C-alpha cells in the first residue's frame, strides 16, 4: 500500500488480464509512491477512466472482450478529458510494425514484456511528470 502520509505522485490505471502482471506493476509502482488501480480488459478500463481521474493508463494488448488497441481507439475518440490521457502500451510484440501500430492507435509509449521493475517505474515517472 502507498504511504498514506505523503500524497501519491500520480494515479495510474493498470490494464492487463493477467493477475500476476497487475500485481507486479502495482507492487513496483506503489513502492515508488504511485496510486494504482486495475482493470482486466478494455471495457473495464473505459468504465474506470470515465469514472475517476487518472494521470496514466498502462495497457496490455491481448485481453478478452476488448483488446488494447480497441481500447485506445475508444479512449482517443472519446470526450476531451479522457481522450488526452497518456497511455503506455506494454505488449509481447517487439516488431517495428507493432510499435508503429501502437502509436497509430494513440499509445504515447511502448514497452515490450517482460518489463523490469526499474524500467517500468522510470517510464511511469516520465509519462506522469513525477520525479523518481
Amino acid at each position, binding site marked *: 500500500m502507498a504511504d498514506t502520509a505523503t500524497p501519491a505522485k500520480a494515479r495510474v490505471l493498470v490494464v492487463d488480464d493477467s*493477475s500476476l502482471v497487475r500485481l507486479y506493476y502495482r507492487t513496483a509502482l506503489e513502492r515508488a509512491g504511485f496510486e494504482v488501480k486495475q*482493470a*482486466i*480488459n478494455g*471495457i*473495464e478500463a*473505459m*468504465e474506470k477512466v*470515465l*469514472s475517476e481521474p487518472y494521470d496514466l493508463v498502462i495497457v496490455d494488448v491481448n485481453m478478452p*472482450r*476488448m483488446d488494447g488497441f*480497441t481500447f485506445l481507439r*475508444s479512449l482517443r475518440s472519446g470526450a476531451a478529458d479522457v481522450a488526452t490521457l497518456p497511455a503506455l502500451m506494454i505488449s509481447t510484440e517487439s516488431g517495428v510494425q507493432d510499435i508503429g501500430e501502437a502509436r497509430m492507435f494513440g499509445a504515447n509509449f511502448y514497452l515490450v514484456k517482460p518489463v523490469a521493475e526499474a524500467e517500468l517505474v522510470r517510464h511511469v515517472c516520465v509519462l506522469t511528470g513525477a520525479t523518481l
Partner: protein
Amino acid sequence: MDDSKGGSSHATHISPEQVQRFCEFVYRRTGMSFTESKRYFIDRRLEDRMAATGSSSFQEYFSLLRTDADHEIEHLINSFTVNETYFYREDHQFRCMTASLLDAIVHQKEPGGTVRIWSIPCSTGEEPYSIALWLMENWSQVDNYNIEIVGSDIDTRALNAASEGVYGDRALMRLSRDVVSRYFRPIAGGYYQIDEGLRNSIEFTRANLIDPQDMKQYRDFDLIFCRNVLIYFDDASRRLAAENLYDCLQPGGYICLGHSESMSRISPLFRVSRFPDAIVYQRPEADHG
C-alpha cells in the same frame, strides 16, 4: 486468520493464499473485488458455501466453483450481495434515466412519440412499477410522450404476482408515505395494492433472455433494465443474451445492468456511457469498422 473449528466435521481452515485464489477468480469472473477490510466477510461466506456444498476442503470447493457445478456461482454471488427486490432499488439509475437518458432518447422523437422501456427480468413487478412511478414523480415531460413499459420474466408465478400488484411494507420501504398514499391502497393483511391504472399500464409478458424465438418479438426499445441476471449466466449464454438484447434496442438505445455487473464480463457489443448518476451502456448508433 485462523478460522479452524476444533471438533467440527468441516475443519475449514482457509489460508490467505486460498482466499487470494478465490478473490482473483471472483474478480475475473464477475468484476467484484474486495478490499482487505472485507476479508472476514469473505471467510464467513466461503465457509458457508463449503458447508452448503458438502465440500471437505477449499480445494474441493474451488474445483466445484470453477466448473460452476449446480450453479454454485449463482449461490456464491447471492451470498455476497443483497438480493431482495423492492421499489426504487438502485434508484441512481432511475435518476440517470430522468436526468440524462430520456433527454437523449426524446431528442430523436416527435412530441407525442413513443418511448419504450423494458424491465427484464421484472420478477414480481417492483422494477417496472418503480419505473412508472419514478417517471410520474420526476419527469417533467412525462405527459408529452407515449410511454410504454414492458415487464418480462421467465417465471409465470412472478408475473402473476406482478399483475396483482400487491406488496408488503418491506417492498415499499424506499417510497415516501406520500407516494404510497397516492399510488397504493391498503388491503387486508397489512398489504398494499398498486393503483389499477398503473397495473393496467404495464404490459407483463413471459420471456426468456436466451431464447431467440422469444426475444425476436421484442424490438425498438429505447431503454432496457436488465439487472442482476446476466452475472449468473455461463459464457455462452451471456453472449447470446447480449446479442438478443442488442437486437431489442433501438440504435442509440441504453441498457442498465445491476450494481455488481459490468459489460466487461459480458460483451463488447455496447459502448460504455458515463453520466453523473450512473454508468450505462449504449447500442451504438452505427457500426464502426
